[in-house]
């Protein structure tokens, strides 16, 4: 399974890459971690801490934002033959459901939300102690042990959640095997077997973040900044922390647009920007390329398939799939996709127009699925939550195309703070409505369908 990593280099080169080349860069060079140190720390954590849970199937909720803590948790749980849970958000209702399904859930994180106070906890302090011990007592690189471990954990599961069209969060189970195969295709596409440096503003807990900040760099020659910078100054200082060229900035259209507005000087070695999670217009892509002085690539994929294609938006609107990605034609202009490592085939939620085997254009997305700040939800699901609040007569969420944020149109006697207080219990903050418009009734057609075009003309009250 690791052949893509092993075949491309000699044992000596592999040892140098794993044992002596910095992989995760932290504030100072002393704190940087190699791949082998991450591996050893995960082994240690798995053996000494997680082993006590041997009677039940080990489930770990990974909340760490920092890449090194997250990766150690991810790998240690797999070594423990456990499953990793990546929550869609931290809303009370979400956490309650997870705990009902998995009462023994261990939580990897600091400052836990209220609903998780009684769960067993792995803190960053503990992982830092393990890093310290591993650095103090370095064990020699052992290629056989490394490959045997990755072979042994290939069936280990990572659970991600996405909004299904039926409105209930849908669990998507990925295996290490699929994530590693999929990473090998992206590594090939973006030439990550040449030394390079990745700074990412996307969270570990979503598919695009999981791929770009963990699986791609772990199994290639890319090194990684340890934090998830949000503020413009932090993004620049993360990039400047390392002079390896090319540097990649991995982000979303929303975040990139905001960064553009700061009018800052971007480091010269930043020459690749990757964007995913929402479509980017050609105009914005041109602005971004000229501001960053870098080539901007959009990455296409889904939680189910991981990333499968990319395009340089300023050059073409045609997407090119990674090698070995195959489309199967279904009825109704739909396609299923097959990739190495993916069990069976997966139906795409977008309509596509296939131009050649590996080239396609994107059609319309199912209008029920929306994305705000890189987070996906179904409007049906959001509306169901809304109507579950006592005191709401009727109401709908609509995405404002100009701001990407959601607007809420509602008939109720509740106040704005009442509505927001209730919604906060149910939804990720990204989906809270801005603004709310109060109506006597929703405008409807003769057959009772909501007239969305009339709604969008209404001013917030």
């Amino acid at each position, binding site marked *: 399974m690791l052949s893509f990593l092993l075949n491309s280099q000699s044992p000596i080169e592999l040892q140098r890459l794993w044992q002596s080349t910095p992989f995760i860069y932290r*504030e100072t060079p002393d704190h940087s971690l190699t791949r082998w140190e991450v591996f050893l720390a995960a082994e240690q954590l798995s053996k000494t801490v997680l082993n006590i849970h041997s009677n039940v199937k080990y489930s770990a909720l990974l909340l760490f934002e920092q890449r090194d803590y997250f990766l150690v948790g991810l790998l240690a749980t797999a070594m423990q033959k456990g499953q990793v849970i990546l929550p869609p958000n*931290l809303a009370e209702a979400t956490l309650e459901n997870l705990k009902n399904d998995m009462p023994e859930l261990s939580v990897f994180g600091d400052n836990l*939300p209220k609903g998780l106070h009684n769960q067993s906890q792995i803190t960053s302090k503990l992982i830092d102690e393990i890093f310290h011990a591993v650095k103090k007592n370095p064990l020699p690189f052992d290629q056989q042990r490394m490959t045997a471990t990755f072979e042994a954990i290939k069936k280990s599961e990572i659970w991600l959640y996405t909004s299904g069209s039926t409105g209930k969060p849908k669990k998507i189970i990925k295996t290490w095997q699929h994530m590693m195969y999929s990473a090998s295709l992206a590594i090939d596409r973006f030439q990550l077997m040449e030394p390079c440096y990745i700074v990412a503003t996307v969270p570990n807990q979503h598919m695009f973040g999981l791929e770009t900040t963990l699986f791609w760099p772990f199994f290639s020659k890319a090194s990684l900044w340890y*934090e998830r*910078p*949000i*503020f*413009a*100054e*932090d993004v620049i*200082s993360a990039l400047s922390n390392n002079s390896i060229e090319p540097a990649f900035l991995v982000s979303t259209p*929303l*975040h990139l647009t*905001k*960064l553009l*507005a*700061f009018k800052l000087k971007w480091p010269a070695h930043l020459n690749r920007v990757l964007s995913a999670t929402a479509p980017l217009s050609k105009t914005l892509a041109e602005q971004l390329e000229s501001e960053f002085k870098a080539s901007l690539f959009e990455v296409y994929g889904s939680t189910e398939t991981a990333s499968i294609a990319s395009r340089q938006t300023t050059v073409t609107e045609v997407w090119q799939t990674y090698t070995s990605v195959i489309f199967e034609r279904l009825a109704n202009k739909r396609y299923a996709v097959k990739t190495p490592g993916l069990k069976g085939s997966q139906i795409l939620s977008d309509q596509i127009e296939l131009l050649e085997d590996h080239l396609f254009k994107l059609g319309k997305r199912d209008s029920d699925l929306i994305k705000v*700040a890189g987070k996906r939800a179904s409007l049906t699901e959001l509306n169901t939550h809304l109507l579950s609040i006592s005191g709401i007569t009727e109401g709908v969420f609509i995405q404002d195309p100009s*701001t990407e*944020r959601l607007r809420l149109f509602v008939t109720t006697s509740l106040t*704005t*703070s009442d509505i*927001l207080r209730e919604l*906060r219990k149910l939804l*990720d*903050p*990204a989906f*809270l*409505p*801005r*603004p*709310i418009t109060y109506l006597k009734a929703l405008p409807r057609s003769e057959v009772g369908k909501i007239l969305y075009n009339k709604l969008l003309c209404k001013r*917030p009250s």
Partner: protein
Amino acid sequence: MLTPEQLEMAQLIIEAVNLEDIQADEIDPEDALFTNGLGLDSIDALEISLELSKKYGVKIKSSDVNINEIFGSIASLTAFVQANKQN
């Protein structure tokens, strides 16, 4: 009760992240801005940092200060900006 500086901050946040349904003087200065309070997210924080750099010349950076505390509430954000403003 908000001080004049806190009220100005509340207004800046409301405009920056389009919380038109909330009145600045209704906000408790000690209320959490993120997750449980006003329910802002990281993109909002970025947006607010842009407005703070334009209006006060304050550069928000998470690495050299305790960012979670600063962004904890209107009161803490106002105190930080007043102590660090350039214009």
